[in-house]
């Protein structure tokens, strides 16, 4: 397992290798590859036409190319205004607003004066540009702050020169340099040309603000795209349009791995509005280009009609035969046998033998889909040996690499414009749709927009894997947990490693917290691709371990909150080098959530409360749910209380939105969402059979943030894992029914 050290996260970037580098949680293993950048960062200064200040941090790599200076970076100030560039993909996590806010804070720019622009993809200039692992904030926090502070220092120097005073006699406020002694002030825009030739400060010499000096961070700021959004202006990948553009669809084998044997291409080509139809062979990499039939048409409707009329004979000799019912039967068998050990501390068998009480349960969760509301799409134009892509992707650099490979050109000949993504959740870490668009565009010879239908999106996702856990545990005479065994059956795509998000590691709860812990892991072969899904691993392990902890508390006849706090124990740092869970911060949020929710108070008849904690993506989050359960197993969620210690809050509005959204997504997914497979085929084709939560079932969600000076983390993921166990523990408290299967609809439960 690679430990992720969040203490100096500003210095690390994921290496760009074939598969997107995912930040993962303490409990995941294997998938994380972190490469260290040289600690030194350099400021690059570029004179702008007409005079102005432009600076950015560059890596030594970029500096080597500095002969080709381009006007690039985070900040551009000239006489007309202040621009701040947003470097990472916006997928709904709010980084197009929050990252520039960090720059503006240290720059001391008034937010109303700032115009935010999406940056180009240039990793030599910006470092890693991706949206994943809730990493945008922690990876960029330090460099964005220093970038803002450096510009501010140069503006101060310019002001000092202009007035002939000491820089130390000046201050800044709301996009102005101020000389308090004389009452003079000048706007940044007026000083920009002079600041452009000021001394570039050493980034390490800059003094950054303390949290109590923040004027912008921690406030509620509405998203920078909101005005355009509510006017329906083109923002998303799907909104892209080019002169002469045609509309493409792509049909792949319903069972992954099938190849085209024959197809009625001539009949399809004869259909109204259809320009072309052709077979693509695929490149052997299921994450890039699967074999299929492309149809190019004058508009989306003609393309979709033609796809419906398309008849393909598939060669399924190598195709998936994946079957959920077979996998489940195999897991039922395996749960009785011990498997390869991932963790083995103390003496679990001894603890079981000498226990006062034991508990056991077989936990199951289904596969689920990302189901971004914007189906995958990409616009591509291959012209004169170069490729241009307009893509809603979370990993633009990988998109460039795969596209270059499939059309046979150098990555330097590929330009990718990052467009707003209608949801990510991990789906768009994978660039199969951009690669398909590139391949189709090369053959089509005109700009094309590839549009997946919802049916394509459900059938060719990279799913959150299902899994099975045989849980056994013991308590002693004092009701203390003494032994814990987690026998996990997961899946593998490549026959070597478990799928992403389907692997337990040494950091899994409660390793290090309970004396005797054994975790075993067996992987079943699986062809349908599985990958990162919002809070990979944690989103399911949280359910299992925090539910089973509650089972043991009840077996001991003790209060669940008391047992959870006892297991967390003394305040201490669990991970190496300052990374990983801190039990003191964990207990802090557990106590805060319990207090705010009124844990232990008298509840109305039929109500129950459940508590759960989970640490993931550097976020410490506890949730308390209050539910009641009707006699037809209808669950009414009255309230969810969230307490979070995630470092300083950047944008309070966005932060609260992410927390509430994670609770709603968690509730939606645990209630009735599953993707099942038979004969290699996904059984759900559209939202009618994948019933996401709607407004009437949405509970009240109260969010409480701990004032924290720990390094900040992103909030797209960590609030999701504690939700399912908090609800399931509350259902048990209300009804005495222990949920061990997700979605709970499998056990006959629904939301009222």
């Amino acid at each position, binding site marked *: 397992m690679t430990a992720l050290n969040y203490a100096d996260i500003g210095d690390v970037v994921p290496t760009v290798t074939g598969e997107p580098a995912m930040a993962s949680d303490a409990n995941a293993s294997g998938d994380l590859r972190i490469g260290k950048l040289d600690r030194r960062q350099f400021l690059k200064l570029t004179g702008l036409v007409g005079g102005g200040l432009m600076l950015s941090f560059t890596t030594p790599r970029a500096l080597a190319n500095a002969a080709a200076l381009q006007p690039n970076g985070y900040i551009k100030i000239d006489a007309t205004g202040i621009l701040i560039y947003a470097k990472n993909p916006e997928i709904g996590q709010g980084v197009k607003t929050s990252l520039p806010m960090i720059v503006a804070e240290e720059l001391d720019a008034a937010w109303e004066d700032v115009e935010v622009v999406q940056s180009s993809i240039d990793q030599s200039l910006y470092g890693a540009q991706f949206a994943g692992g809730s990493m945008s904030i922690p990876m960029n926090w330090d460099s964005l702050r220093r970038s803002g502070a450096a510009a501010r220092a140069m503006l101060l120097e310019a002001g000092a020169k202009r007035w002939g005073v000491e820089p130390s006699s000046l201050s800044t406020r709301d996009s102005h340099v101020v000389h308090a002694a004389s009452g003079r002030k000048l706007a940044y825009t007026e000083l920009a040309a002079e600041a452009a030739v000021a001394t570039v400060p050493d980034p390490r010499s800059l003094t950054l603000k303390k949290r109590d000096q923040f004027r912008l961070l921690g406030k509620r*700021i509405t998203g920078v795209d909101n005005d355009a959004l509510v006017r329906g202006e083109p923002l998303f990948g799907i909104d892209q349009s080019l002169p002469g553009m045609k509309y493409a669809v792509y049909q792949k084998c319903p069972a992954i791995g099938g190849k085209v044997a024959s197809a009625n291409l001539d009949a399809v080509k004869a259909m109204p509005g259809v320009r072309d139809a052709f077979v693509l062979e695929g490149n052997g990499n299921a994450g890039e280009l699967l074999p299929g039939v492309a149809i190019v048409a004058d*508009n989306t409707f003609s393309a979709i009609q033609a796809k419906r009329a398309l008849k393909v004979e598939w060669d399924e000799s190598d195709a998936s035969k994946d079957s959920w019912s077979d996998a489940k039967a195999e897991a039922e068998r395996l749960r009785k046998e011990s498997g390869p050990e991932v963790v083995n501390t103390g003496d679990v068998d001894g603890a079981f033998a000498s226990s006062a009480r034991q508990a056991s349960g077989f936990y199951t969760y289904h596969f689920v889909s990302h189901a971004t509301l914007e189906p995958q799409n990409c616009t591509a134009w291959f012209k004169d040996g170069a490729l241009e892509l307009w893509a809603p992707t979370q990993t633009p650099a990988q998109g460039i690499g795969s596209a270059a490979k499939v059309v046979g050109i150098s990555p330097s000949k590929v330009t990718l414009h990052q467009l707003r993504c209608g949801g990510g959740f991990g789906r768009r870490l994978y660039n199969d749709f951009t690669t398909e668009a590139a391949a189709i565009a090369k053959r089509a010879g005109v700009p094309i927009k590839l549009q997946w239908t919802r049916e394509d999106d459900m059938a060719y996702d990279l799913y959150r894997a299902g899994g099975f856990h045989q849980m056994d545990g013991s308590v002693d005479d004092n009701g203390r947990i003494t032994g814990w065994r987690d026998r996990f059956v997961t899946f593998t795509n490549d026959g070597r490693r478990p799928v992403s998000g389907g692997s337990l590691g040494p950091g899994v709860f409660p390793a290090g917290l309970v004396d005797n812990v054994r975790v075993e892991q067996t992987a079943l072969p699986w062809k349908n691709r599985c990958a990162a899904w919002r809070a990979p691993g944690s989103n399911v392990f949280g359910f299992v371990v925090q539910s089973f902890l509650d089972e043991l508390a009840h077996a001991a006849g003790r209060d669940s909150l008391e047992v959870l706090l006892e297991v967390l124990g003394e305040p201490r740092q669990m991970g190496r080098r300052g990374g990983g869970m801190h039990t003191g911060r964990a207990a802090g949020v557990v106590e805060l959530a319990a207090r705010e929710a009124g844990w232990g108070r008298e509840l109305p008849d039929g109500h129950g409360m459940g508590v759960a904690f989970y640490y993931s993506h550097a976020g410490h989050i506890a949730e308390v749910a209050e539910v009641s359960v009707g006699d037809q197993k209808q669950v009414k969620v009255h309230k969810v209380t969230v307490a979070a210690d995630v470092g300083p809050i950047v944008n309070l509005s966005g932060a609260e939105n992410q927390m509430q959204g994670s609770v709603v997504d968690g509730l939606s997914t645990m209630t009735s969402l599953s993707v099942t497979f038979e004969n290699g085929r996904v059984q759900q084709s559209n939202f009618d059979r994948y019933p996401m939560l709607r*407004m009437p079932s949405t509970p*009240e969600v109260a969010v409480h943030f701990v004032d924290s000076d720990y390094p900040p983390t992103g909030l797209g993921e960590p609030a999701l894992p504690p939700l399912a166990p908090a609800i399931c523990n509350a259902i048990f408290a209300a009804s005495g029914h222990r949920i061990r299967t997700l979605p709970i609809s499998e056990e006959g439960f629904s939301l009222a």
Partner: protein
Amino acid sequence: MDLKVNGELRSLGDVDPQTPLLWVLRDELGLVGTKFGCGISQCGACTVLVDGQSVKSCSYPISSVATAEVTTVEGLAGSDGELNAVQQAWVDLDVAQCGYCQAGQIMAAEALLRAKPNPGDDDIDQAMAANLCRCGTYIRIREAVKVAAATRRSAAEASDAAE
């Protein structure tokens, strides 16, 4: 074929009359604010108004529109560009996460408030139940509908008082 949309008469050329209104708006007229989510009336991302009633444009053939007046999210702001009450509430409350569902949500809210200027909580929940938000922004949508309703009511009272 012609289409009345957002107060303008737009000519369509020879579009297949079976084409869903959604794709006519997006592909032929460049009105891409209206979104494609499912194509089968399940998500509401494609919600527009046809003669003031909310419809799922993905499942509404252009031939059925005939002479009716279509309003899309692009047609809500005033001619001076001023956001209407629903749009403004969405900005003020920072409702969106990814934002993809929000044009449909806004149109559903607009239809609700035209029919029921003073909706209760259950009215809001029921009217908005046809619109999915994958990001889970329902809590803010609920709030924004209430804020927009209040703004519209006070604007209506002000104009009544002026008469």
